[in-house]
């Protein structure tokens, strides 16, 4: 190599190092200057605070670990960097990131893994059925987008069959007297008309809930309220849900939240944990926040009591559920004077005790989606 090149090469190398060192110092300065946030909207979680010193936590290594988490969580432009990472991975051909498939038509679809807890789940449902005598119990296990919109998954994506798991559970519950409701066909029938699942969230849309509501009504001999009788309106068009948070890439799509309202209903909604009463099943404040799905039934509550004076029967319904039910309850209230909603992840005491103390309850609906049924184990609390 000639001298001139060597000199040029050395200059370039020096420049590279200077630029990198400059970038490092710049970020350190920004870190010192920028205001720290407590909450990450993008990831929907609280960011780590600077740890409190104690000799104990130092000895256990928790103190220094806490500092590390704090420094990483409050790094300048964290959201931008997360988007850059997701974009890079997609550009490099990755179609499964953090358990999310990057599907066709902007669909982000949560993966479904081989079930681990089928025995436990069957056991819980069986014990529950044995302990409840007075009411008709329906079980509705809802397949998620990974099943209903499987054609939108990236080619070759390895997916366990949710329907196979559901058939196994339904099969083993055959002689418990539980009414096993199938909403798969109804979802498949309507999946082209409207988006039945959000593109950026793991929940179904109100359209998805309506399809399952019809299946539930048919199985229980109830005449569902026809679509035309509802006032259908879009309440948000900038929803980015939990799946979005796993990627945090600002280039991804936004969802619309639609609701079906029955203007005839006269509702009283009582949240037992906060002792609040409302006349609506929705909390509009959540539409201003990140987690807009919480708009339905005011986010998470262990126990909600809903009274509808204009319901078409005097029957009373207990709903034991995960968050999928939150946008289906608005349909169910049309047929039950009282609806009691239990989130068994948080309700302590077991709804079966409640049922035995309240003989007026005529119906029970157990509603879970196939993903959280196995991973979240909220059903540990049903009995």
């Amino acid at each position, binding site marked *: 190599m000639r001298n001139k090149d060597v000199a040029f090469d050395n200059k370039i190398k020096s*420049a590279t190092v200077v630029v*990198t060192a400059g970038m490092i110092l710049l970020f350190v300065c920004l870190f010192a200057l920028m205001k720290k946030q407590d909450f990450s909207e993008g990831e929907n979680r609280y960011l780590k605070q600077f740890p409190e010193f104690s000799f104990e936590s130092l000895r256990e290594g928790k103190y220094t670990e806490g500092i590390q988490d704090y420094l990483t969580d409050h790094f300048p432009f964290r959201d931008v960097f*997360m988007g850059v990472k997701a974009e890079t991975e997609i550009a490099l051909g990755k179609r499964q990131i953090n358990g999310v498939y990057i599907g066709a038509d902007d669909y982000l679809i949560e993966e479904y893994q081989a079930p681990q807890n089928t025995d436990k789940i069957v056991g819980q449902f069986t014990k529950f059925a044995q302990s409840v005598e007075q009411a008709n119990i329906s079980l509705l296990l809802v397949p998620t987008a990974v099943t209903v919109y499987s054609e939108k998954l990236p080619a070759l994506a390895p997916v366990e069959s949710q329907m196979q798991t559901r058939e196994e559970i339904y099969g083993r519950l055959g002689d418990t007297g539980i009414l096993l409701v199938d909403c798969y066909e109804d979802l498949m029938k309507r999946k082209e008309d409207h988006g039945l699942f959000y593109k950026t969230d793991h929940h179904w849309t109100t359209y998805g809930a309506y399809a399952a509501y019809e299946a539930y009504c048919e199985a229980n001999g109830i005449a569902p309220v026809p679509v035309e009788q509802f006032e259908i309106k879009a309440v948000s068009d900038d929803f980015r849900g939990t799946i979005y948070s796993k990627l945090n890439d600002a280039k991804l799509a936004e969802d619309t939240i639609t609701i079906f309202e029955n203007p005839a209903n006269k509702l009283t909604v009582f949240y037992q944990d906060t002792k609040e009463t409302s006349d609506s099943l929705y909390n509009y404040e959540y539409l201003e926040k990140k987690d807009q799905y919480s708009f339905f039934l005011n986010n998470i509550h262990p126990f909600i009591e809903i009274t509808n004076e204009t319901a078409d029967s005097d029957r009373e319904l207990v709903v034991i559920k995960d968050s999928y039910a939150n946008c289906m309850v608005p349909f169910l209230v049309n047929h039950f004077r009282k609806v009691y909603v239990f989130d068994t992840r948080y309700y302590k005491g077991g709804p079966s005790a409640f049922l035995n103390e309240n003989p007026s309850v005529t119906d029970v609906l157990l509603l879970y989606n196939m993903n959280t049924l196995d991973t979240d184990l909220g059903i540990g609390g049903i009995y």
Partner: protein
Amino acid sequence: MVFSSIPFLFFFLPACLLLYYVVPFRVKNYILLIFSLIFYAWGEPVYIFLMLFATAVDYTNGRLMERYGRKKKTRIFFLCCSVTINLFMLGFFKYADFIIGICNDLFRLSIEPMGLRLPVGISFFTFQTMSYSIDLYKRKVKVEKNYFTYLTYVSMFPQLIAGPIIRFSVVMEELHRRAISWHDFVQGSLRFLQGLFKKVLIANNVGELWEMIRAAQAGGISVACAWLGAVCFTLQLYFDFSAYSDMAIGMGQMLGFHFPENFRYPLSSVSVTDFWRRWHISLSTWFRDYVYIPLGGNRAGILKHLRNIFIVWFLTGMWHGAAWNFILWGLYYGVLLAFEKYIIKDRLSRLPSLLQHFYAVFIVVFGFVIFVFDDMGQMGLYMSSMFGMAGNSLTGTDVLWYLKNYAVVLSAAVLLAFPLYPYLQKKAERLPQTGRMILSAAGAVSYAVLFFLTTAYLVNDTYNPFLYFRF
């Protein structure tokens, strides 16, 4: 604190370097020492005293050996003191539960395991301090009179927790006198960045794929997929480990030290013998110089040679962790090396070079499957998938799906595992001047882009393991 993390990269390292450069030379070692102790105490607030104790023992032994060691017997006495204490410490913290387990199985006892957590880097720093005592005994190094200088040598943060195992003789002079130059700073920084990119962008990504395939194995995977998994783990271990060495060598150079190379493209080997000349060189030469050669090496007849090979490879395996699979892995290499030496001889080198590479890579990849499973049952299951004995098909959509998702990273990893970069550099020298200039400018831009990407990956740190906590 791992090197590839936001706290280290943006806070610890800049603070250390800034202070280190501004203070006068006689204080530099103390700055380095203080930062090294903070670095170690950061992850091991309790076991740091163990390291301080180990260094104090070897320092004192060294001084005593020098002072009273005119006779060979006294020298041996102090050497034995040092080696015994070091080996006892290593044995106690690393192998106690393993040995208790064996005793329980053999004699049907039920001794409670002690459940001690392994002090990070203990296998590295005990080997370093032992090399000092042995070299001092052989009068290959001068005694270190300043305890803090000796402690600086052992605790120096670039190499403290994952090597390379740097011998005292290598840095003895630089500990007392070294030039700090802009040139070294630039070269060292670039070397550090290369290591950082290798770790974050390649090792972590192929590692993630390996973890996925390993998890999928329980549900059934194709033969091709199982082999892809084994290749991924091989690539992960190589890129992770050699990246740590790159970063250590780079930071050493930034501080004015010149550490020897630890990896020389081991995955491009042509035989098992060749592989061990290229993989973790500081460890294999340690065992060669302090165990194999003192035992007589290959100069005392076949039987003794075989015995020596057996001992060295048993120990090499065991050094990697207190579990049977590591011992098995070591012996696997012992057997293969003896086989190459006495049975295959030079027949291998007469084969087409492609076949030689294929043979070496096959042995290495298979070896790392032994290495990665410390549960023999799991290992058996995985191997049955690799050889189609789990009722699995030869190939399937699974392998295509993984290849599709990781095509770019895997291709980059495979290419970079071979000495392609030095080869291209040589080729580039023959380009006309403007071409060379464009290339070095493009190199600079890619460093900046890769650094930006690395930061993005580190901020969103979902998979960033530290593989050497067992060593």
